[in-house]
């Protein structure tokens, strides 16, 4: 793809690099894409544990039948907040962090195109998240209507209600600003010779993700604003007493919600597409068809939303349409899986930690894809819908899918960020613990779901006891294994074997042509890409 002339980057930065200011001001006022990327990533890591702690409250209560620890309403607050935090506070910021750090270095740009906007879009996040978390201490508790915020139930939220809406507005605004920045950067700041079809896959997946964000975040903002006016200003968008319809909200929500699924997974696709070629020592198979597959997935994601709501009672024609369009997504997604496999085929594969997480991603994301295909079949979906089968499905695509993609990316670029190699042994231990526990946690949920256990219940019939206990054990194992991840990161930041510029065995991409750690300013003079 891209080979670069080395001149300019290496020698040049020494006399130009003035380094960051010291202290808190560096982080508050920074416009540097690397600093902002770091803040996004650290923030996401913290939120991983906040959201994770909530999931452990859920799994502790579900360890045995009977109510042992929390009241049902608090349980619902936990499921709701866990989802909101993990989606808007953890996984999305994590990938924006990767975008900030890597996209300018990958396309040979000195920084993001809109650095001040970049600072703002990050600093909205902690405040929006704190606003959301503060609802836990309000009269009536945190929102408990599920992250889907379906009316009329969401209108029964206590004092937390307007804070929920406002924090969703803020989190959405932060995402939109980040997306604008990424699009402008990729469109305008590419180094000479870096044509769109020479860009690394990670840039492509993020470019398309950014367009998805701009298209659907305003839809969510509009939907929740309608909730707000229904609650306080006498409108009746979703209130039947005034001629409204609660199902309308579901259409609005999922018109946002399904592209949102791809907003979460596409950057992970990009990271995997960077890592597999490096450790297979072979170029990415079918680069152009990968780009078109991502574009096709993004397009299809706009016309499948009602598959989340087959049970609301749609006309037959509507059900058939959404069944077919949903199954079509399997085709470009299949192309990606096959191309990744072909990338490894006849390669020369080694198993460093980023590769291990990527291989696990390939296997386990595919399992999530299979259950997704099953869920698309409407008659069968009538059984699967809102059961633990669905919980298993989306956790397979989100945890060993999106989250493993992010973890793989962290290990892959940590040496470039810190200048040190991470502890490979500990990394591998972290991988095996995560890969084993994630399956112990989520695989049994397929079984209880098929056997008839609804999702979002704080207590269950005794027939589901055994698999729930296994699932809870897995969840605690997975949660505590992530502490090891934090330890490996801290250890790597503090020291370790000095990383070379290339870090890995002849990887492709401009980021490997700059020193490790990457200097504060890179590519002040644009590299020439042949």
């Amino acid at each position: 793809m891209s080979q670069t002339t080395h001149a300019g980057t290496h020698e040049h930065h020494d006399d130009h690099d003035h380094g960051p200011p010291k202290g808190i001001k560096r982080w508050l006022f920074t416009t540097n894409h690397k600093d902002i990327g770091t803040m996004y990533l650290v923030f996401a890591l913290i939120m991983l544990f906040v959201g994770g702690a909530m999931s452990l409250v859920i799994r502790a209560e579900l360890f045995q039948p009977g109510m042992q620890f929390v009241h049902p309403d608090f349980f619902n607050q936990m499921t709701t907040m866990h989802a909101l935090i993990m989606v808007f506070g953890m996984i999305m910021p994590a990938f924006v962090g990767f975008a900030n750090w890597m996209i300018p270095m990958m396309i040979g740009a000195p920084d993001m195109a809109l650095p001040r906007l970049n600072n703002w879009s990050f600093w909205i996040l902690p405040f929006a998240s704190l606003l959301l978390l503060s609802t836990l201490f309000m009269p009536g508790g945190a929102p408990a209507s599920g992250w889907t915020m379906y009316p009329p139930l969401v209108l029964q939220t206590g004092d937390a209600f307007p804070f929920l809406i406002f924090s969703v507005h803020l989190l959405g605004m932060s995402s939109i600003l980040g997306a604008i920045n990424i699009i402008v950067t990729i469109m305008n700041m590419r180094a000479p010779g870096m044509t769109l079809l020479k860009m690394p896959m990670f840039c492509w997946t993020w470019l398309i993700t950014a367009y998805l964000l701009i298209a659907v975040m305003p839809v969510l903002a509009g939907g929740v604003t309608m909730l707000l006016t229904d609650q306080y200003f006498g409108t009746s968008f979703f209130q039947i007493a005034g001629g409204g319809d609660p199902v309308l909200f579901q259409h609005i929500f999922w018109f946002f919600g399904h592209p949102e699924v791809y907003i979460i997974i596409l950057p992970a696709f990009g990271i995997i597409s960077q890592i597999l070629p490096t450790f297979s020592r072979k170029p990415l198979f079918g680069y152009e068809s990968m780009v078109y597959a991502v574009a096709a997935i993004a397009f299809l994601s706009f016309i499948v939303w009602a598959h989340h709501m087959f049970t609301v009672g749609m006309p037959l024609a509507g059900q058939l349409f959404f069944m077919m369009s949903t199954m079509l997504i399997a085709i470009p997604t299949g192309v990606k899986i096959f191309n990744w496999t072909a990338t490894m085929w006849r390669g020369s594969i080694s198993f460093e930690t980023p590769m291990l997480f990527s291989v696990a991603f390939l296997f386990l994301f595919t399992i999530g894809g299979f259950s997704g295909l099953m869920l698309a079949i409407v008659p069968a979906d009538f059984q699967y819908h809102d059961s633990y089968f669905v919980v298993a499905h989306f956790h397979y695509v989100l945890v060993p899918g999106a989250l493993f993609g992010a973890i793989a990316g962290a290990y892959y670029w940590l040496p470039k960020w810190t200048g040190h190699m991470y502890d490979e042994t500990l990394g591998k231990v972290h991988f095996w613990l995560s890969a084993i526990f994630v399956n112990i946690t989520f695989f049994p949920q397929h079984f209880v779901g098929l056997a008839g256990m609804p999702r979002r219940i704080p207590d269950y019939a005794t027939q589901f006891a055994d698999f729930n206990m296994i699932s809870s054990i897995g969840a605690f194992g997975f949660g505590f294994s992530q502490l090891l991840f934090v330890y490996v990161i801290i250890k790597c930041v503090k020291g370790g074997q000095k990383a070379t510029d290339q870090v890995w065995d002849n990887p492709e991409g401009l980021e490997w042509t700059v020193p490790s750690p990457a200097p504060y300013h890179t590519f002040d003079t644009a590299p020439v890409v042949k």
Partner: protein
Amino acid sequence: MPSRIAKLLHRLFVVLPLAGIAAAQAEAPRWQVNMPVGVTPISRETYELHMLILWVCVVIGVIVFGAMTYALVKFRHSKGAVPARWSHSTTAEVIWTVIPTIIVVWMAYVATPLLIKIEDTRGAELTVKITGYQWMWEYEYIGHDVRFFSVLAEESNAARRLRSGIDPFTVENYLLDVDEPLVVPTNTKIRYLLTSNDVLHAWWVPDFAVKRDAIPGRINEGWFLVEEPGTYRGQCAELCGKDHGFMPIVVVAVPPEQFTAWLDERRDVQYAGREEQAPRLGAVN
């Protein structure tokens, strides 16, 4: 006085016969890993469709995971594998675009007739209106002047309190039992009309392969035809607030003659208990 008669009648004709049927049903097995086959023509076909797509996924999975595993084992750097330099093959890409396309179109083709059948509510012999409440169900036999509420059974309700000290394993059908079940005749096409009085709920009975949302301001409809007498249990499947997990569904299917007799008795109970029941129904209306 009428209320005492009502209770007695209720005992004699409603609770006891149904309790006999309920007791004959073993509790659901633990370690169940698959969807129940169920007891309606639709549930059987749904199960078969589910197994079909499952096996399609298994076959694709074996091929794809097999290829991945082969690559991971065979082309290892540590074994001195030398990487090939190719990164493109139009033939391969056409093959793995076309084959999945054929598979998904075929799967949609297979699923469509069943979906059409599910949506065809014509020719129903009995209509039951089901209304969701926070947190109970109301059943009304349209045209038969019988309606009642169905709430979580007392034993389960006591055991499910926070730190109740009651072991759920000692409670029969924990969380899946109600004070008064929906009674339906076997081998009869039953249409249900589904709505809600407050928030969204969903009426789910796995053995019937029926799950549909109860939505305020809307009336959803569907149907089922139970072939085997018995007691079938399900739960609310749409988050509806704090006691979402505590509003189960129990359906008892009895032979049509027994159902007719039950319906008549139940109507008498309702009239005998009018003085007692009236305020409760009035509060709902």
